[in-house]
């Protein structure tokens, strides 16, 4: 009965076609990070062969992967709610400094053992909580609050050992970086455990659903009576926990309390999350995307080092490859209407 259309499609058909097209785009976007990773692995294997694909190098990659992964996991949830956390260099550095001071070391008499490790992590958790509370209740953008805390934490970390990094001499903690299980370093196992917890939170808890919902449209959550503020504060606290664990492990890996451990962790972590396909506007992506993103960043740094690219141009090349990866993943995402 309808008037003649220029195309034979009905509105329903058109809508179905559009959904299909969007679905295809989304599938491409979903696999783009994997394709980038695969391409990098193939290129580096072709360029360096045995040196890149060797067992020792795989272990080295797993060793180097652990801390960026922990940092990126915490950051993923923050980005999923549409926030940003710039405190990373400080929170990680502070935890790395505190662990050196609190466990058995060559400069300070405190010898709290495992309790020291927990306290060092707790410091970062409290900072995460503070960032969340200030952001939510004083209505200050999260990037500003967390940026300020980056400096606060760096200062506290430096103050904790007054300039000269304490060397960790607790025999258990000294042995940890050299401890392997099934060929994989202990530190990486910790990261894997945290990863599993994060996947569980994201997929199987109400809190995980709320995180997506906050990133998509806060008003929906408010309408059904969920406290958006509480979700946000919890997300920043969870991020603080991840940063704290990362910092403590970094201190143990370095064998000393060292506030500079956190330096230059923040932007690679942001890049890893985005390269993995999590949208900076929130509500899309997730923990599994971040694994791929972190793998891309780690493999890239490791491969370029093994290929032996001149250090003066290496950073530039690294940037271009990251840009390409982001263009492949995010540009497609931007066209997807449903958020």
């Amino acid at each position, binding site marked *: 009965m309808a008037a003649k259309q220029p195309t034979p499609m009905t509105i329903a058909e058109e809508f179905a076609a559009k959904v299909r097209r969007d679905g295809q785009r989304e599938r491409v976007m979903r696999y783009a990070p994997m394709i980038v990773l695969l391409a990098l692995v193939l290129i580096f294997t072709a360029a*360096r062969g045995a*040196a890149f694909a*060797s067992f*020792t*190098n795989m*272990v*080295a990659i797993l*060793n*180097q992967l652990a801390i960026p992964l922990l940092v990126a996991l915490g950051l993923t949830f923050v980005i999923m709610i549409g926030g940003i956390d710039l405190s990373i260099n400080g929170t990680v550095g502070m935890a790395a400094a505190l662990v050196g001071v609190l466990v058995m070391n060559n400069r300070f008499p405190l010898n709290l053992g495992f309790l020291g490790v927990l306290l060092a992590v707790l410091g970062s958790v409290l900072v995460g909580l503070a960032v969340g509370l200030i952001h939510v209740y004083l209505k200050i953008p999260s990037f500003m609050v967390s940026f300020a805390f980056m400096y606060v934490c760096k200062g506290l970390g430096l103050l904790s050992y*007054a*300039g*000269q*990094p304490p*060397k960790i001499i607790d025999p258990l903690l000294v042995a940890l*970086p*050299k401890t392997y299980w099934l060929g994989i370093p202990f530190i990486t196992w910790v990261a894997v455990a945290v990863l599993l917890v994060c996947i569980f939170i994201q997929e199987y808890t109400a809190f995980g659903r709320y995180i997506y919902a906050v990133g998509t449209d806060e008003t929906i959550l408010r309408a059904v009576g969920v406290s958006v503020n509480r979700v946000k504060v919890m997300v920043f606290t969870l991020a603080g926990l991840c940063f704290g664990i990362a910092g403590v492990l*970094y201190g143990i*890996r*370095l*064998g*000393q309390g*060292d506030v*500079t*451990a956190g*330096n*230059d962790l923040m932007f690679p972590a942001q890049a890893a999350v985005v390269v993995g396909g999590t949208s900076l506007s929130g509500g899309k992506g997730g923990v599994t995307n971040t694994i791929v993103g972190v793998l891309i960043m780690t493999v890239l*740094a*490791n491969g370029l*080092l*093994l290929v*032996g690219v001149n*250090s*003066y141009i*290496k950073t530039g090349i690294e940037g271009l490859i990251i840009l390409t990866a982001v263009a492949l993943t995010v540009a497609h995402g931007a066209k997807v209407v449903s958020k």
Partner: protein
Amino acid sequence: MKRIKVLLALVLALAMVGGGTLALAEELKDFTIDPAKIPQEKLDTVVSLAVSVRGLENPYIATIKVGMEMFAVYLDSIGQKYEMQVLDSGGDSNKEVDNMRQFAANAGGNALAYSDPNENAIAYSLAEAMAEAGGFIGTAWNKPADVGPADLTPNWVIHTSPDNVINGYNTAKALFDYMGGKGKIFVCEGMLGNTAAIDRAKGLDQALAEYPDITVAGRDTGNWATAEALTLVETWLGKDPDVGGVWCANDNMATGALQALEKAGLKGKVGVTGVDANTDIVEAVRDGFAVATVSSNGYLQGGYTLAICYAAWAGLIDVTTLPPEYREFATPALLITKENAAEYLSSVPEFDFSKPFACKAD
């Protein structure tokens, strides 16, 4: 005839002046402070000593303060009255200039200071603050290339700095000798574009040219950071586990390299060198886990800079006639190897401050 005589006299006079300055340049190195030549009124005047530094929590900077105290002991021995203080900027350039201005003004013309400018740009302001009050200052490490002591004669007496090229060369040579002159090395450079990093790498390259059987298996920047050096060495060890040495541009990175080697079970089997004489690396050198590091010798920098300023204040040297190479020069650094590491950790060196220019490296 008379004209010829005048001309002859002029030539003779010129020759004498020329010969005089020549002799001066040669003898300056042995120039000795003679307490008998210092007027009693100078000895009875309270001279104010200061070292202007970034913060005493850094072990190297603490040695500069000790250098001042050692020079003060010398002043006691010749009967000079003095007082001394540390001007701590806490890493704040403005504060360092303010501190200097206040110190110089309080002490008037009787202020002597060693200053490690927090950054290149403030070196002139610090010297200017001293010049306005009529005191004497020597700077170390940082200053822009286009300004120097000659711009504020006589108050800006000297500017000195340890020679980073030589530091890089000496540690590299110690490492290569340890390796028996052949084998693979990894190189952790400092922050790209940083003067100290460029110069130390230049020294390494000079040594590499002298040892053709040493090959570089991995070379990248570790940005002065322990964590980055750890990652570099860990990655390189995967492809070259038969490496013989790791050259690092500073001790922080040497710490990271040692940690990576320990994880691979190679600590003590692979030579490591750094620069800075951080306590943990000097201990590693003593215990045979590292080959060498370099001390910039803060005792010498602090003590001798004040000694030269003192000689200028007491009128024993005339700053206006000092040749340029005695206004800006390199100070010797101390190479720390297994032979002297234990001694370095347990003792403070002794200096003869009566020969202030003994601190000049040749």
